């Protein structure tokens, strides 16, 4: 499953895990305070929600096709985030660790490169910039 949420991911429950799994990989992408040498104060995420949900679900389905995993779920935060908050959480469960690691990486990489979500960095001093867009 793929979710977008306005609420802090920190407060959301993890998905239930079946007893058939021997490995659970959790990736949490967090907001860091520096990017490209600039001091970041906050991040803002915006999505084309309808298409982002479809494309995100597609990515998670592909992970099931490519890797023998038992469960996978991805949640992406929307709105304004402060330093240290979780922007994306991917949880993958599998019988063994290799496929869990690989599927988790696949989901994170594909979500970052394909799903219509945009990130604006707000810098100390008041400037802000849409990442990937201003330098295209």
């Amino acid at each position, binding site marked *: 499953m793929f979710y977008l949420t306005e609420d802090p991911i920190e407060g959301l429950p993890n998905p239930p895990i079946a007893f058939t799994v021997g490995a659970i990989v959790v990736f949490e992408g967090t907001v860091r305070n520096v990017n490209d040498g600039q001091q970041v104060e906050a991040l803002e995420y915006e999505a084309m929600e309808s*298409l982002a949900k479809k494309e995100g679900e597609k990515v998670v389905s592909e992970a099931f096709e490519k890797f023998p995993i038992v469960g996978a779920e991805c949640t992406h935060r929307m709105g304004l985030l402060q330093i240290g908050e979780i922007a994306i959480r991917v949880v993958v469960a599998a019988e063994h660790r290799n496929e869990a690691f690989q599927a988790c990486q696949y989901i994170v990489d594909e979500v*970052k490169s394909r799903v219509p979500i945009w990130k*604006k960095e707000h810098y100390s001093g008041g400037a802000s910039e849409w*990442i990937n867009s201003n330098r295209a």
Partner: protein
Amino acid sequence: MPSITVQYFAILREQRGVSEESLDTRAQTPAGLYGELSARHGFSMPLASLRVAINDEFASMDQALEDGDSVAFIAPVAGG
């Protein structure tokens, strides 16, 4: 002339100043439509850097536009 709804997100939304508009266009494809809009609003993004969605599905820049279509130009994404 087909009547099209255009949705804007992120940098394009800010540059256009609205998140959605309806318009009549002579453009027959998203590429042509973006050229029209870019000339009118001075978008900074080159066409080659964009993807397009028509009616909530990724589409080609050369797909024929039809009356009533909803078009969204998608600047390079940056999730995660």
